[in-house]
């Protein structure tokens, strides 16, 4: 377990409540919340450290510095009887002044101090109101950021706050219940179908620890993007636990058809003709997930397709590949993918999987009913959907089929609280419309012959 920030790895940036996942690359500019900086100085600091953005770089800060910049508030009012709505006139600092301060290189904290000093109404506000005012200004002007170790919790929070549509509007309550309801633990063999950018897979991978098996179902020929998962800095060994399998092979699998072989793999030996090589390498092909990971979250995505970038002594080196090298890379990739497919095929066919997890935008019933055969009896499943009606249908299908018990269709209400002295109340805004969860346990509907009944 590494507790220190390392260049070349993904981290989570945090400013106030705003999170962002980025890969720290040497000398590579990061843009975060209207701040621009290179991450090089963060190397070697403890995760969770606070940095100040200073002249395009990061400076580690400590408590004394922060204390120095604090303005001790001495005077405050009792209530709002003296407050007159001045429609913005209470602030004597004009926009130009603030911009000038910024240009002079004043820190966000100094600017906030000036704003407070030049507000004619500030001292008349109650202490609580003053806190609120400063917090609001901090959100805008603060130049402090924190760098956190990427964990499934932070990645989920990030997606919930920034990209709810990409994760089917799932909220923490559903995400957390999915992995407990399906009893995910080290060594679990899980069938997963998610269209959540890999966010659910990230949590599942964290819970699997060092061993287990994931059959990752996807639409189309190649696995969909797993951006969220790529932030976890998974080791090569852990990536190997994920075996992608195309949904389009599910029907043939149930019908007992063998997995079709990949024509490219058989052609390997014969391809010598350069034109043939060109056409093979330039046909539409999606890069494998690990490589995609390198490209994501960067602001300038300048990598030409399929050329590899590596780090040598902390410097980026780019190798331009010849067509035949590209073909070799591609064949290698296809080979890996085919091996994964075969492994997944066998997993699904054996019917001994430990759990099924689904959170996708598709109609769940046909997929789930087709997957039931891969699940061992007495094992749990969880299906999330944005809408209630498809899960109602699946609920009925499952009850009628007698193949599942303990069915529960749930909706969770989650509320955040502001807990401060004399100011405790639920947050003014709360999230709703965060989807539904169907959970249950598979059973074997046949009466076993071994059980002698009296």
């Amino acid at each position, binding site marked *: 377990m590494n507790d220190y920030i390392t260049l070349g790895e993904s981290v989570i940036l945090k400013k106030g409540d705003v999170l962002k996942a980025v890969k720290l690359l040497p000398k590579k500019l990061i843009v975060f919340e209207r701040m621009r900086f290179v991450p090089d100085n963060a190397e070697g600091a403890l995760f969770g*450290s606070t940095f100040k953005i200073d002249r395009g770089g990061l400076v580690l800060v400590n408590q004394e510095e922060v204390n120095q910049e604090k303005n001790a508030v001495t005077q405050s009012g009792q209530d709002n009887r003296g407050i007159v709505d001045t429609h913005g006139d209470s602030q004597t600092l004009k926009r130009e002044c603030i911009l000038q301060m910024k240009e002079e290189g004043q820190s966000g904290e100094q600017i906030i101090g000036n704003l407070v000093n030049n507000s004619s109404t500030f001292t008349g506000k109650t202490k609580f109101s003053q806190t609120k005012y400063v917090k609001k200004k901090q959100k805008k002007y603060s130049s402090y950021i924190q760098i956190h170790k990427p964990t499934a919790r932070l990645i989920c929070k990030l997606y919930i706050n920034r990209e709810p549509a990409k994760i089917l509007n799932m909220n923490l309550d559903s995400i*957390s219940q999915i992995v407990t309801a399906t009893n995910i633990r080290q060594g679990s063999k899980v069938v997963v179908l998610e269209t959540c950018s890999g966010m659910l897979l990230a949590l599942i991978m964290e819970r699997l620890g060092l061993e287990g098996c994931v059959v990752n179902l996807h639409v189309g020929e190649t696995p969909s993007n797993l951006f969220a998962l790529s932030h976890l800095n998974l080791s090569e060994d852990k990536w190997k636990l994920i075996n992608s399998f195309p949904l389009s092979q599910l029907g043939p699998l149930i019908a007992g058809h063998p997995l079709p072989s990949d024509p490219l793999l058989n052609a390997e030996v014969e391809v010598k003709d350069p034109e043939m090589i060109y056409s093979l390498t330039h046909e539409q092909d999606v890069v494998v997930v690990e490589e995609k990971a390198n490209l994501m979250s960067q602001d300038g995505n300048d990598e030409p397709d399929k050329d590899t970038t590596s780090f040598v002594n902390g410097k980026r080196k780019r190798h331009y590949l010849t067509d035949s090298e590209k073909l070799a890379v591609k064949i290698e990739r296809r080979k890996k993918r085919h091996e994964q497919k075969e492994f997944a095929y066998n997993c699904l066919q054996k019917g001994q999987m430990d759990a099924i997890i689904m959170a996708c935008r598709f109609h769940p019933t046909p997929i789930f009913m087709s997957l039931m055969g891969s699940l061992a009896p007495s094992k749990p499943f969880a299906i999330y959907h944005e809408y209630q009606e498809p899960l109602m249908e699946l609920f009925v299908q499952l009850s009628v089929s007698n193949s599942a*018990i303990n069915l529960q269709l749930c909706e969770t209400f*989650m509320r955040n609280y502001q807990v401060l002295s004399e100011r405790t109340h639920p947050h003014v805004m709360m999230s709703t419309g965060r989807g539904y969860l169907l959970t249950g346990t*598979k*059973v074997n509907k046949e009466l*076993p012959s071994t059980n*002698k009944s009296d």
Partner: protein
Amino acid sequence: MGFDTSRSNVAYNDLVIVFMGHDSMLPVTVKQGEITQTKFGALKHNELVGHEFGAKFNCTKGWVYILQPTPELWTTTLPHRTQILYAPDIAMITFQLELKPGSVVCESGTGSGSLSHAIIRTVAPTGHLHTVEFNQDRYEKAGVEFENHGLSKNVTIYHRDVINDGFPVENAADAVFLDIPRPDEALPQAAKALKSSGGRICSFSPCIEQTQRFCALLRRPGSGFRDVETIEIVRKSHNVKRVNIPVADIGLGNPEVKQHVLSDKGPLNYAYETGDDLAIGHVIVRTNQEAGKPCKPPKRQKVENVDSQESNSEASGNVQQKKGPEDKGYTAPSATKFGYSFRTCIAPKEIYGHTGYLTFASYCPEVCLDLDWCQ
């Protein structure tokens, strides 16, 4: 034994969950020669051995399902010695504490062991739960349960008062969970148990006053804690049911009235298109000939009607009878012949509307900066 998921057949000394219905499950430890009485008759333990988990099992007066226990099934069936934590809170706690295989966790108090089982599952096989209980009886019973469930390798239970005696480990825990009447008084002990390189804490309190005291202490400058967050979770479990509601008579008996009301210009010109939306519900029609037998209204009725002008004259309004053999029995709506049938989710009349406030924070004494002004 029992929480080992690798086996698929029952063995002696296993804990199994006997499933008799949604609200009736029974935890049973399989012992040689023993018999458990269920509402479906006697369950002979000797015959259970070798039985496949998840398969039907014949009792003397019917059959039941024998399930492999999971921490979640255990939570719904365990003997209550205290108020217990339920699945939604447990899920949020394990998630927010960032538990995973290898995590070291401190818990106080053990209570009935509902959360403990879920923690052990998640941190096994390399992690450990140190759980502290100050009640002698609960301490002993939980200890026996852990032993019987084959969990001893990943849990140690201690009989002590966390506020006075602290946790058994120092600078070793990745996460601390507190479910005690005065969590604020145990905060120094929790901080001591957590790794100085960082960790997570959670306190569960049914009442807001405890939560307030705890949060105030977490936010005190120099506490080493930050990112304090308090949430509440309520789960509503739905029952899927088909419901049939009657359609009232608004006086459509007279064919001329009916034609007028159901015509394109009338207020009900849309009404009998419901056949297109069967997922939500459909109109059940009873005809005079086949009373009581539901049949679907013809699909896309109105569109066809608009398309073929000449058919307008012979039928009443939008609803016609001349579509095909299966539509023969279909007649225009009238109060006694109609019901609106749909599938819906019915929420229980009463649910756990409040369990407790969950407060989470990160502990990071080495890098924790107090960025909050004016506090």
